[in-house]
């Protein structure tokens, strides 16, 4: 699939994305990804199964919900059970017996979330394992090596992740380092034919930095010789060599942290404006329903987030009007399903009242019922979004969605209204 991008190769990365429809107003697109473990319709929400399991639900249940791609986490799996064992088990697909697609992140995000345990240098990130106290170095090479062993269909470059609330020179440093680390990831990638390596656009909340980052990639494609004086790491003495650094897809990273929504959407819009049209745009860590709909309008194709599965385990069920905290007393005698329009097994068989009672017991089945429903909710939402794009009624879909969620278009959050307006969708 993805061609080897070694210094001497002039092959470009394959086109894994086929555009099926585009909204004539906004930047929304409907498409299809061609991946080693089957096609995936976009826009797509990818549930997160961090440690080779989708929390309480079996591979069969996940397949039955229509999921065709989900996430695994390189940081966690790299520590337990480790890449050698997973390789023996015929990769992550074999280990967890998942027949469809897998995307693994690089382990970089844990730098931000577990920052007290890590130290970042040009070499990589030094972690102290929370399980046995052992020190490990996660370098671009090591991250790709682990992901090669995992065998996921899409792998992510190791990027220098900085919290979106950080400002100043650290952000610029991280952005340039991420570009250098992309080069190292491409060089270290041993299975470009079976695994698609995505680049990650960084730059925090600084429009200029983001733009610079994007330019750096585009410049590489256009065969411009570049010479980054900061490239001093071993193996990059060929910096002056013309390097075609093409990737099959892009991720927009460094957002979905503590930044304001106002800044968030502007960075997304800036990124999608400059990214190639014919390649998938993966917005990392975004999963609230409103955010998904707005970011589809802004031109994103792929999303992942722990929110729907995590909130399920706290007894919260996602619905078109928001969420139901099913542990609350008001649901004790509510004999309706979570959502009468939902086709998931939970809503077909069980009432809010039963789930309420079960959530107050120690039977874990309660959590699984909600996990099934919340994943179904997210996948059904993306399906509906896609259908509306294909049928050329996406702006109407957005208006209806916001109306259901917020009651009235004027009650829609300002950032969302502005973001949609910027791509030609008005709510009133």
């Amino acid at each position, binding site marked *: 699939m993805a061609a080897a991008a070694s210094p001497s190769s002039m092959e470009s990365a394959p086109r894994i994305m086929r555009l099926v429809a585009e909204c004539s107003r906004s930047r929304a697109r409907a498409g299809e990804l061609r991946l080693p473990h089957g096609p995936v319709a976009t826009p797509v929400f990818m549930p997160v199964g961090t440690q080779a399991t989708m929390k309480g639900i079996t591979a069969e249940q996940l397949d039955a919900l229509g999921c065709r791609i989900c996430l695994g986490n390189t940081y966690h799996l790299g520590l337990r059970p480790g890449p050698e064992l997973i390789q023996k088990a015929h990769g992550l697909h074999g280990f967890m017996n998942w027949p469809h697609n897998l995307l693994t992140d690089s382990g970089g995000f844990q730098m931000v979330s577990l920052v007290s345990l890590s130290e970042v240098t040009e070499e990589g990130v030094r972690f102290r394992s929370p399980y046995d106290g052992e020190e490990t170095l996660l370098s671009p090479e090591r991250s790709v090596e682990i992901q090669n062993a995992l065998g996921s269909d899409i792998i992510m470059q190791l990027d220098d992740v900085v919290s979106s609330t950080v400002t100043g020179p650290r952000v610029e440093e991280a952005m340039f380092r991420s570009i250098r680390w992309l080069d190292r990831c491409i060089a270290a990638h041993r299975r470009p034919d079976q695994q698609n390596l995505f680049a990650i656009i960084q730059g925090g909340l600084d429009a200029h930095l983001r733009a610079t980052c994007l330019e750096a990639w585009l410049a590489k494609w256009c065969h411009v010789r570049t010479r980054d004086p900061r490239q001093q790491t071993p193996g990059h003495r060929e910096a002056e060599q013309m390097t075609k650094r093409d990737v099959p897809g892009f991720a927009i990273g460094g957002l979905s942290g503590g930044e304001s929504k106002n800044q968030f959407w502007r960075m997304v819009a800036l990124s999608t404006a400059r990214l190639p049209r014919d390649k998938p745009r993966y917005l990392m860590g975004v999963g609230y329903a409103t955010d998904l709909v707005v970011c589809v309008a802004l031109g994103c194709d792929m999303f992942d987030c722990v929110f729907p599965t995590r909130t399920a385990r706290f007894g919260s069920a996602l619905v078109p009007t928001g969420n139901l905290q099913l542990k609350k007393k008001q649901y004790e005698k509510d004999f309706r399903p979570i959502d009468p329009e939902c086709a998931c097994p939970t809503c077909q068989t069980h009432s809010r009242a039963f789930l309420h009672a*079960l959530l107050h017991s120690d039977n874990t089945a309660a959590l699984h019922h909600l996990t099934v429903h919340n994943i179904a909710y997210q996948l059904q939402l993306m399906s509906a979004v896609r259908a509306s794009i294909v049928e050329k009624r996406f702006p109407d879909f957005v208006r209806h969605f916001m109306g259901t969620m917020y009651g009235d278009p004027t009650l829609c959050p300002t950032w969302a209204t502005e973001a949609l307006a910027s791509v030609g969708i008005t709510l009133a």
Partner: protein
Amino acid sequence: MELLNLMLFSYQDLEESHRMKLSLTKVVNGCRLGKIKNLGKTGDRTMDVPGCLLYTKTGSAPHLTPHTLHNIHKVPAMAQLTLSSLAEHHEVLAEYKEGVGKFIGMPESLLYCSLHDPVSPCPAGYVTNKSVSVWGVGGRVEMTVSKFMAIQQALQPDWFQCLSDGEASCAEATSIKRARKSVDRSLLFLDNCLRLQEESEALQRSTIIGVIEGGDVMEERLRSARETAKRPVGGFLLDGFQGDPMTLETRLHLLSSVTAELPEDKPRLICSVSRPDEVLECIERGVDLFESFFPYQVTERGCALTFSFDYQPNPEETLLQQNGTQEEIKYVHQTKKIKTTGCNQEMTSFEINLKEKKYQGDFEPLVRGCSCYCCQNHTRAYIHHLLVTNELLAGVLLMMHNFEHYFGFFHSIREALKNDRLAQLKELIRRQAS
């Protein structure tokens, strides 16, 4: 017309309305093989004996949704619900009106409602002449006969254990006085419940299971059996026969004497006995139905049932696959805890502990040849990983395997009885017991 019907209702009528019938195919060395027919509120279901009931917590199989439960082969036709988990939801069920089966999403299953949860025995000292208490998540629920029957009316189960005094068996040594009281109270509760059932439209199709009490006192046990058998109950629950392995022989002797007093054509259930070896001992003494909480306990300690119930020729070969030598088995027996209920009990030699490091790289299924979803799709290494990382899926997959293995065991008991091979099966299980 209604009034006339009510007036004509007598014990005899109640007796006949139990069209349910246990037909025995054969009885071998005390073991009964047969079918219960005309079961349930619709009167058209059947159940094989010996058999077990699906164990549930708050109306759901532990860890399992209908989808994953449906993956399991040979799930028993009847599920066990516990009043301890459902009594506090009385008001909700009363308002729901359509019965607990539909409420929990198991409208097709036969349902038996027991008083207590065999896995979490309740504190003693709360039974009075007028009431029995159960413990739910929200605390103690005290039930008089009328409250108990009101709850059953809201539940509308197919079978329910009658309100009873089971505390004679809780203490270390039962006094004769306490044993006598347990029998007296239980009979009084039974008569009152039967009277209230006559007056309840909603409970006409439900069957009361009479409870045999009496602690360790033979005289009281016999009295309980004879007196309970005189009432129009649909079956019998043998309560208080669980306990300390030291007094096992005595209790088994009591059990034989009790079942000898019971009518042949009504099912005998036993509570709090679920281990494979103990199940066989009880079947030999005339017991028909068991709870299936043992596979749940095995699951909770991160273990998988691996004992063989393949009694066909070559039992030597099967034993070679088992863990532990005779020496190890003896040692385990000595260090085993005395209490045999509760999730904290020690591992048995019927199972393997998937947390052990040796399974880290073991890519075999839990049990080779097992047809369950877990064994067909996953490896020991994967289960080990899920346990080490504390993932919820571990419980789901282990529960699926353990239930399937256990239900397969009961199937093999029936097959062995049919083919006159129970002795071989018993020997096979005995050799694997610790």
